[in-house]
C-alpha cells in the first residue's frame, strides 16, 4: 500500500514516471511538429505508400488487441460464464482505452483530422469498407464508454445513473458483439480492393473472416496478458474475486484461445488451397508466410494446449504474449510487408523514427491513463457500496 500512496499522491521520480514523462514530452514535441508542419515533416509516407505504421500498428493492431472487451463481456453476459465476471471490467477498460487511442492516432494520420465526422455529416461514402469501419468504431467507442461508465459512476457516487446503465448491460453487450464482428472483419476487407498490390499469399476473399477470427484470438490473449501485468503491478488494488482469478482466467481463456487458433490454422490452409497459391510457399515471401502461420498460429495453439493440460500458468502467459506478437506480425504483413510487394526496394516504406515515436507516445499515454483509472476507480475490485451484479 505504501507504493500505492506514492503513486496516488504527488508525482515521484520512480523509473516508470521518468521514462513515461520523457516519452510524453518527446511525443508532445512530435505532435506539435506533425500538426504545424504536415505529414511530410514526420513520416516516410509517399505516393506509393500512403499508409504506414499509424495505420498498420495504431489502427489495425490497436483495434485487434482491444477486442478483449467484446470477447470477455460476451463470454460472461451472453454465454453465461459468470465465473469470469471479475475479468469484465479490466477488459472493458482496456477495450475502451484502446479504441479511444485508435481514434486519437487517426487524428495524426489523416490529412484533415477536424473533418473526421464528415463521412457521417457531409457525404456518406457507403460503398467504402472504410465507411463501415468508421461507423462501427464510432458507435462501438460509444458502447464501450457506456459499458465502462458504471465504474466511473460508482467512483463518483452516482447511484441512480449507475443502475440505469446496468439495466442496459445485455443490450450493450449484444450491440458490442455485432459492431465488433463488423468492424474487425471490415478492417481486413479494406484490402480486398487492392488484389494487385497485396501478395497473393495474404490476399484472399477470406480476409474479413481471418481478421475477425484473429481479433477473437487477440482478445483472449490480451486478457491473459493484461491480467498477468495487472497481477504483477496492481495486485494490491485487487479484491478476493480478482485475486482468485489469477489462475482461472489464464486456464479458461488459454483453452479457448488454443481452440480458436486451431480453427484459424485450418481456415488459413483452406485459404491457400482456395487461392491455389501453394507454389508461392517456395519463395522468400512464402518462407515468411510459413513463419507467420507455423510460428505464430500453430505453435501458440500447441503451447496453449500444453499449458492448459499441465495447468502450467507460466507457459500460458508466455504463449499469450507470443500470440499477441503474432497478431502484430500478421497485421504488419498485410498492411506493410506484403503490401506493395511488386515495387522495387527503393520505393518500399520503412517508418521514420518520428512515426515510431508517435506510436510509442500513444501506447504510453494509454498505460498512464490505465494506471490513473485502476488506482482510483473500482476496476480491479468491487466497490464496497455495490453488490456484484
Amino acid at each position: 500500500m505504501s507504493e500505492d500512496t506514492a503513486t496516488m499522491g504527488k508525482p515521484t521520480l520512480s523509473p516508470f514516471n521518468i521514462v513515461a514523462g520523457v516519452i510524453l514530452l518527446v511525443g508532445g514535441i512530435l505532435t506539435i511538429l506533425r500538426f504545424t508542419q504536415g505529414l511530410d515533416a514526420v513520416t516516410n509516407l509517399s505516393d506509393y505508400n500512403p499508409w504506414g505504421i499509424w495505420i498498420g500498428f495504431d489502427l489495425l493492431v490497436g483495434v485487434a488487441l482491444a477486442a478483449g472487451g467484446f470477447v470477455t463481456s460476451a463470454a460472461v453476459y451472453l454465454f453465461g460464464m459468470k465465473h469470469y465476471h471479475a475479468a469484465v471490467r479490466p477488459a472493458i477498460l482496456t477495450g475502451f482505452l484502446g479504441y479511444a487511442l485508435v481514434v486519437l492516432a487517426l487524428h495524426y494520420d489523416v490529412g484533415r483530422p477536424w473533418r473526421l465526422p464528415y463521412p457521417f455529416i457531409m457525404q456518406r461514402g457507403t460503398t467504402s469498407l472504410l465507411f463501415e469501419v468508421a461507423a462501427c468504431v464510432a458507435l462501438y467507442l460509444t458502447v464501450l464508454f457506456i459499458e465502462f461508465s458504471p465504474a466511473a459512476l460508482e467512483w463518483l457516487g452516482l447511484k441512480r445513473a449507475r443502475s440505469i446503465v446496468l439495466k442496459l448491460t445485455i443490450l450493450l453487450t449484444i450491440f458490442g458483439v455485432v459492431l465488433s464482428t463488423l468492424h474487425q472483419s471490415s478492417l481486413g476487407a479494406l484490402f480486398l480492393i487492392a488484389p494487385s498490390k497485396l501478395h497473393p499469399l495474404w490476399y484472399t476473399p477470406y480476409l474479413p473472416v481471418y481478421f475477425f477470427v484473429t481479433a477473437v484470438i487477440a482478445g483472449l490473449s490480451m486478457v491473459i496478458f493484461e491480467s498477468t501485468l495487472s497481477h504483477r503491478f496492481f495486485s494490491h488494488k485487487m479484491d478476493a474475486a480478482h485475486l482468485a482469478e489469477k489462475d482461472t482466467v489464464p486456464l479458461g481463456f488459454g483453452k479457448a484461445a488454443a481452440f480458436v487458433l486451431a480453427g484459424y490454422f485450418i481456415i488459413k490452409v483452406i485459404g491457400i488451397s482456395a487461392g491455389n497459391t501453394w507454389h508461392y510457399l517456395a519463395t522468400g515471401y512464402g518462407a515468411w508466410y510459413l513463419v507467420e502461420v507455423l510460428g505464430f498460429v500453430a505453435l501458440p495453439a500447441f503451447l496453449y494446449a500444453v499449458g492448459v493440460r499441465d495447468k502450467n500458468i507460466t507457459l500460458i502467459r508466455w504463449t499469450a504474449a507470443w500470440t499477441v506478437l503474432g497478431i502484430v506480425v500478421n497485421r504488419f504483413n498485410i498492411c506493410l510487408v506484403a503490401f506493395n510487394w511488386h515495387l522495387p526496394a527503393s520505393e518500399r516504406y520503412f517508418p521514420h523514427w518520428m512515426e515510431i515515436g508517435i506510436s510509442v507516445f500513444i501506447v504510453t499515454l494509454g498505460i498512464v491513463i490505465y494506471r490513473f483509472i485502476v488506482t482510483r476507480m473500482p476496476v480491479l475490485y468491487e466497490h464496497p457500496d455495490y453488490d456484484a451484479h
Partner: protein
Amino acid sequence: MSLSRRKFLGWIGAAGMTAAAGRKASAATTHHFEGYPESMAVLHDTTFCIGCRRCEGACNTVNELPAPEVPFTDLNVLEKQRRTTSKAYTVVNQKPGNASGPLFVKNQCNHCLEPACASACFVNAFTKTKEGAVVYDASVCVGCRYCMIACPFEIPTYEYDSAFSPRIMKCTMCHPRVLEGKLPGCVESCPTEALIFGKRDDLLNIARQRITRRPNNYVDHIYGEREMGGTSWLYLSGMPFETIGMRMDLGVTPAPELTAGALGAVPMVVGIWPVLLTGIYAMSKRKEKIAAEEKAQALATALADADAQATAKMDAAMEKAKQEKATAIEKAVKEALEAEAKARAEIEAEAEAAAAAPPQEAPDEDDKDD
C-alpha cells in the same frame, strides 16, 4: 441537381420501397452495367509518342500546377522513371523499346469506368461523370488516402507537405475544359497523333482498325478496354504492355465487385447476429434459471427431510416421555393404592379399635411426595 435528388431518393428509399423504385438499373436482374453511353475517352497510341513532354507542360499550365524544377523542354528527365506526383498529374517515361529506338509512354489517371478510388472513398469525394472523367471534390476530403491504396494504377497523389489543407491530386481529364467544349490540355498540345480525344466507343473502333491495318506495328490488345472493368484512357503499344511498364495482371474485375461480397455480408451480420446472440443469452439464462430452480428444489427437499427427521425424533422423545410418565403414574397409582390399602387396613384397625371417625388427608399427602 440530379445528385441531390439521387441522394434524397436514396435515403428516403428506406421508408418506402416505392421511392427506391424511382431509380432503375439498366439491367437490374443481372447487375451488369455498361457505363455512361456516349462518354468521352482518350486513346494514347504509344507508337506515335516522341517524348516531347509538351503534354506535361500543357497539363501544368491548364491545371495551374507549380513550376517544375526542370523545364519541360529538358528531355533528359525522360530516362529516369517517374510517377505522378502532387505537382505533376502526368509524366512521360522512356522505355528501352526495340531496334527502331526507345518508346515513350504517358502516364496519368486512366479514369476507370468503375473507379476503385470512388468505391473506396468513405466521403464519396470521387465521381465518375457522364462525360467520362473521374473528378475529386477536395471540400469533403478527410485525407485518409484509402483511394491511393485502392487505385490499381497508383495514380492519386497526396500533398504531404501541406499541414492544413492537403488534397489528393490527380488528373481530371480536364473536366472543366471538356464541359466548355475544349480538348484536354495534353491532347490539345500533342504534336503527333499519340493522343486522340473522342467518344470511347469510337476510339475503341479506331484502335481496332489500327491494329487490323498494321498488325506488325501493334500487339493485339487495347489496354484499358477491359482492365479493371475498363478505363476511359485507352492504350496501343508496339511492344508487350509489360515491357512499357503497364501491368497485365490487374484482371478485368471492376473494383466495386471486389468488395461487394464483404459489403453484402454487413447487413446479414446486423440482421442475424442479434437473433443468434439473444438466443444464446436466453438459453444460458434459462439454463441458469433451471439450475437455480433445481437448487431451490433440492434445498426444499433437504429441508423437508430434516423436518421429518426432527419430527420423528421429537415423536420418539415424546413417546419416551409419555411412557416414562405412564410408568411413573402407574407406579404412583400403585403406591397410592398400596398406601390406601394400608391406610384402610389401619383405619379398619382403628375403627375396630376406636369405632367411626374416617381419615381424609393421608392419601393426598402421598401423591404430593411422588
